[in-house]
């Protein structure tokens, strides 16, 4: 076979070989998409305005904010009682309750009570199962 098919890979730099190849392929495909869909891409501003106009902003961003808070608080709270999973237990209840309330349309007291019960029992059971019988580390 001709020499053009030959390749020598230096182990020290081999971590860059495949990423470079894939990166190049990605750029080529990206350009092809730009070329083909240029009209649609030009209309992106409008598209996004429509997306945000149609969006239920409270529920969408509410979910994200609650989730971020949940993740942020879990670790420091857990560190008060190290390696006990308390961070998970104490944060999951409120998180389940609040996202549940956020997702509900009407909030009749019976359903809220049911949700509250689940928000207490669910995380507690899972916490018990994972730190107890499964003996795993939780935040």
């Amino acid at each position: 076979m001709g020499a053009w098919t030959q390749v020598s890979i230096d182990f020290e730099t081999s971590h860059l070989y495949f990423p470079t190849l894939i990166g190049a392929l990605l750029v080529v495909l990206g350009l092809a998409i730009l070329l083909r869909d240029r009209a649609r891409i030009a209309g992106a501003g409008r598209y996004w305005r429509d997306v945000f106009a149609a969006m239920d902003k409270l529920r969408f961003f509410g979910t994200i904010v609650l989730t971020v808070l949940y993740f942020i608080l879990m670790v420091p709270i857990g560190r008060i009682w190290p390696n006990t999973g308390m961070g998970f237990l104490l944060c999951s209840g409120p998180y389940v309750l609040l996202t549940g309330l956020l997702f509900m349309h009407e909030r009749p007291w019976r359903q809220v009570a049911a949700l509250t019960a689940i928000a207490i029992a669910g995380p507690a059971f899972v916490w018990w199962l994972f730190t107890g019988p499964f003996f795993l580390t939780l935040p």
Partner: protein
Amino acid sequence: MTIKRRTFLAATSAIAILATPVALSAQELPGNVRMVIGSTSTGGDTYQNSSIVAEALGEHLGINIRVDAVGATEAFKALERDSSGSTIMIFHDQSYLGHLYGVQGYEDPFANYVVGPTVAINPGNAYLVPADSPYQSMEDIFTAAANGERVRVAIQPGGVSEIGFSAMKNAASVMSPGSEDNIVPVNTGSQSDKNQAMWDDLADVINGSIQANEQFTQLPEDDATAMRFVWITARPGTLEQAPAEGMGGTSRDELLQYASPQTSVTLDGAEDFTFDKEFFFLFNPDMDPAIIDQIDTALTEIFAAGEIQERQKASFFIPNFLPSEEARAHLTEKRDTYGQVIEQISAE
């Protein structure tokens, strides 16, 4: 039996835990300890060995110790973050070898952490050749290298698997300067990759272990997967403590043939190079030293009782308890020796 204890602890602890937050008396291990290990495998030797120690220590001190197989980089991060004693680590020689070989994510454990007691040795580190290999011994390999033959050795670079290879190169250069260039690495990953490299004829010698490769040495020679040991890196004194029946179909006496002094890979022309994979504790440098004392004392008592040794031997570990001070001195010396080997072969 463990279930009951755990379930009970978990069930009763919730309230008790809430009542006793951080300000614990810092001279002792807290009631819930996380033992991170430098391996991500729960089927591997580090995990097994750590869980034997964690269980014994937990029972002895009446506390909970969980073993988390988070892997080296994450384990060091977790250890770094927590100086309260609620995170401790167990790992083996990889912790400093990774640093000596300059692997990403490894810092000098002697400078950045506190090295604690050693608990056990895995004596299994070995090198093998295909059953039909022309090389009958390490001597043949060194002779071949001296005669200009290229010997390809499959290893996982950057640590425990490479140190024996570095020693081979070093020995070659001591015995016949220049011949070390004929001993070349084939960089692979897991044990199965190394075996495969042999079967694909990409490697003449592979790094392996007594535990994982012994059965391949028992296969009939015409089997394409059959192998032979050529070198076991353990110190003779370590292997002598292994059960007399050895491993599988290979007795301890047969294993000893492949180890120093019968099989010699020289360190400096006088002494043999040896390598034992030792498991030891690592602590956060700011952790209260009283906790280290507590662990030392507890382990001394546990090893005096003698039960843990049986567990370790059943899993082919050699019990090797050294309290922190001694362990640190021993490991520092070991690190220095290997540091020189690595420096010498890379200097040329």
